[in-house]
């Protein structure tokens, strides 16, 4: 199959406008004859479901949570980018586009990123109209902050809870459509499979998480807005329930999976405290606006600090190494996430880490408090400081925070064309679930932007083009494909319940996480990846022979839910390894030790690897097939990314 990205011809700035005009429309009277399924109710899902219902489509929205408002978009802290140029500091749509393509280390599609930058301004308008309480200046206008990877202030925020406020905005729009009867909501329902009829997505199979009932639902189009797969690493900043299952089942039905190895390790997370740890907590990147990152200048001082022989505040200025400011004078502490994470790893590998495990660096607000007063710092980051204190028992107003990188976001995802359609006709992927806009590294405050762009302003246009070519006749819920797909789901459930082995689901998840973090985390090598692949294959065998899933299907059964998800993570893990192995270059979050500059920066190979790697599922335990979509750059010049 040749991957057709369907990028419209013509100048970059006109592509989206032209494409909207050229897309077919569904007339208003016909819209009510179409059913659309939206899986997931985070920023992408809630905004898509609400917007499509407003247009007149009949929407069914599914979430495994008890309420759409619990989706993990809610946890995004720092902000959302938009090229408003309200600050008069030189921002523009083109600059946001340029920063995002460069930040992604030139592994994203120009046309998609430009569209994202273009609609970003409308997102802010939309959210304000919904009553999202963004931060304001005294004159009543909107306030902005700066963020990593950019030299302009274009980030809109609502204290340290921007994701919460944006999601509640989208949730309110969704709730309005539920009240209007245009959206039917299915909470505590997990998607288990896509149903295909004549090569097109025509519905889904779900499991009711309260009763265990396996149900089928028909639709003329299915939207997967199911987030990222960071939990393949077990420990991540993702919510406990975040999973790859919906995307993975679609993959097994024929949707190609793109750039799975592109994962983002966020530099500012609270370090691991022990084996009991269930998740990692992010401290917003916005903290790097005022906090300074440092470690002791020498190994010896760091050792004394770890042993408790000296106190952090006693370390003299000349004995501190503000390594980001030193190495990257023009961006300083605001270098992009991949660069900041990698450098934290380097200094810790040198033995200069600052906590007991040696895997932490300082993020220090001493100078900012001196400059701005404690009250001003508290007004910007109060809730984050409180959260830090709650978790660690230490007061960041008095002593520097300790941070260490952690898995945070996955740039890879289901391959989609310019219309956000996967390689399965009628099946779309939006938000973090797709691969499209962030290349090999996502800039801060861009995930919220993409989720809402896809849901509010892209899919309402592109879905019409597909539906207009599909007859609006109702789909037969008793079609043999529905019955067959439901049977397969039931069989898998009983298979899991029958194994009755000795090891818990979490045992497998933790083991998988360790393999992935060690060999497919911040630094990767051919040797390590090959070893990891063998280990994962063995883990998969062991899982299906020896996992212990208690209880029955016909009840609320958290272990069974998790078993399904972990089984899919194991398979995804193997594909990530394949992808990381085949990409023999370093770019963004993908750092292959064999490919680096003498200064230890990522060394891209544009001649051989300027492509999207899209993987095709070939059957149980078969090697997946790699398809390449070449990336063409007409508007930006590919350079060695430099933040010096």
């Amino acid at each position: 199959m040749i991957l057709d990205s369907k990028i419209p011809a013509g100048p970059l700035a006109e592509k989206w406008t032209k494409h909207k005009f050229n897309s077919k429309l569904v007339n208003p009277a016909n819209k009510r004859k179409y059913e659309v399924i939206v899986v997931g109710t985070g920023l992408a899902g809630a905004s898509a479901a609400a917007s499509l219902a407003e247009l007149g489509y009949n929407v069914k929205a599914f979430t495994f949570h008890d309420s759409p408002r619990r989706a993990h978009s809610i946890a995004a802290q720092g902000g959302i980018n938009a090229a408003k140029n309200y600050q008069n500091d030189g921002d523009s749509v083109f600059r946001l586009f340029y920063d995002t393509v460069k930040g992604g280390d030139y592994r994203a599609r120009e046309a998609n990123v430009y569209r994202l930058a273009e609609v970003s301004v409308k997102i802010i308008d939309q959210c304000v109209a919904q009553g999202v309480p963004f931060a304001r200046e005294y004159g009543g206008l909107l306030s902005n902050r700066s963020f990593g990877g950019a030299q302009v202030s274009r980030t809109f925020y609502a204290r340290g809870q921007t994701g919460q406020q944006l999601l509640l905005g989208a949730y309110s729009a969704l709730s309005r459509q539920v009240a209007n009867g245009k959206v039917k909501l299915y909470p505590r329902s997990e998607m288990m499979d896509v149903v295909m009829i004549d090569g097109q997505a025509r519905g889904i199979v779900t499991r009711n998480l309260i009763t265990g009932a396996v149900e089928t639902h028909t639709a003329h189009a299915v939207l997967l807005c199911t987030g990222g797969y960071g939990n393949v690493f077990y420990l991540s900043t993702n919510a406990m329930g975040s999973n790859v299952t919906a995307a993975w089942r679609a993959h097994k039905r024929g949707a190609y999976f793109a750039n799975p190895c592109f994962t983002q390790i966020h530099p500012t997370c609270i370090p691991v405290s022990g084996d009991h740890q269930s998740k990692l907590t992010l401290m917003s990147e916005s903290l790097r606006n005022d906090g300074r990152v440092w470690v002791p200048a020498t190994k010896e001082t760091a050792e004394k600090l770890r042993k408790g022989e000296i106190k952090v505040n006693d370390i003299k200025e000349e004995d501190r190494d503000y390594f980001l400011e030193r190495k990257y004078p023009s961006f300083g502490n605001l270098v992009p996430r991949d660069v900041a994470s990698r450098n934290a790893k380097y200094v810790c590998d040198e033995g200069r880490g600052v906590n007991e495990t040696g895997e932490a660096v300082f993020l220090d607000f001493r100078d900012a408090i001196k400059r701005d007063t404690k009250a001003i710092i508290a007004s910007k980051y109060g809730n984050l400081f409180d959260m830090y204190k709650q978790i660690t028992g230490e007061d960041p107003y008095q002593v520097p925070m300790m941070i260490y990188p952690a898995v945070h976001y996955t740039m890879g995802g289901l391959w989609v064309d310019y219309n956000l359609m996967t390689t399965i006709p009628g099946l779309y992927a939006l938000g973090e679930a797709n691969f499209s806009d962030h290349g090999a590294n996502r800039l801060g405050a861009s995930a919220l932007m993409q989720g809402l762009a896809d849901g509010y302003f892209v899919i309402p246009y592109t879905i019409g083009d597909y539906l207009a070519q599909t007859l609006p006749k109702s789909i037969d819920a008793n079609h043999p494909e529905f019955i067959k797909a439901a049977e397969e789901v039931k069989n898998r459930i009983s298979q899991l319940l029958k194994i009755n082995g000795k090891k818990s689901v979490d045992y497998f998840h933790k083991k998988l996480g360790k393999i992935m973090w060690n060999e497919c985390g911040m630094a990767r090598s051919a040797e390590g990846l090959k070893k990891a692949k063998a280990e994962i294959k063995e883990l998969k065998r062991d899982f299906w022979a020896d996992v212990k899933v208690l209880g029955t299907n016909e009840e609320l059964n958290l272990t069974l839910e998790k078993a399904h998800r972990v089984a899919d993570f194991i398979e995804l893990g193997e594909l990530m390894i394949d992808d990381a192995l085949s990409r023999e270059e370093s770019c963004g979050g993908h750092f292959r030790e064999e490919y680096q500059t003498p200064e230890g920066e990522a060394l891209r190979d544009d001649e051989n690897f300027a492509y999207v790697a899209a993987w095709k599922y070939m059957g149980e335990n078969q090697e997946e097939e790699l398809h390449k979509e070449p990336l063409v750059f007409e508007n930006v010049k590919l350079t060695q990314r430099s933040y010096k």
Partner: protein
Amino acid sequence: MQLTLKIWRQKNASDKGGFATYPVDHVSKDMSFLEMLDVLNEELTEKGQDPVHFDHDCREGICGSCSLYINGKPHGPLQTTTCQLHMRSFNDGETVTIEPWRAKAFPVLKDLVVDRSAFDRIIQAGGYVSVGTGGVPDANEIPVPKTIADLAMDAAQCIGCGACVAACKNASAMLFTSAKVSQLALLPQGQVERKTRAEKMVAQMDAEGFGACTNTGACEAECPKGISITNIARMNREYFSAVVSSENL
């Protein structure tokens, strides 16, 4: 440290339910409360016993999923969410009692998991500004005084966990409902539907079977996000002015 856990076990919505006692040792002070329960569940699974079911997700104090009633207090001894509560708040040898939220409008589904969809229906009754996607004015065309924006944000921080209902002797949802009514009543965007919103949301709250407010302030004291009861006062004003001058109902 060692603890004795007294946990509410209930097989499903129709089961009567009751307490079961579990001793746990090797509890570290750095564990979160939910991680302590994870460890218990691993042990139960090993023994072939059904693990304790509880709602949780982000474990960052923002999604509002976690909901335990610990030693007679929603989310336990601190004014935070259960997922942010750490074991350093407990003492070696202590007995810790864990129950689900108790309210008629929040039926127990299993063990510590309750159904909070009533909150969704209250929002569906009017907790929004009726604007569709697109066709809205430029964001800076709606100036909002900073003090008002900050007050609206204070109210908007509600995570919908239901601790206010669990804390209230009347199982009232006034704090939850008033937080949304306040946010939108304060902002210029919310003015057009101000009256109908207050009326409809209050009506839905009553229809769900939540109790009335008698101003004891327990909700505010237990709210992990510090939502103030001045929001309830504001909602009462909104509601009264709406019912005496309503054009809609």
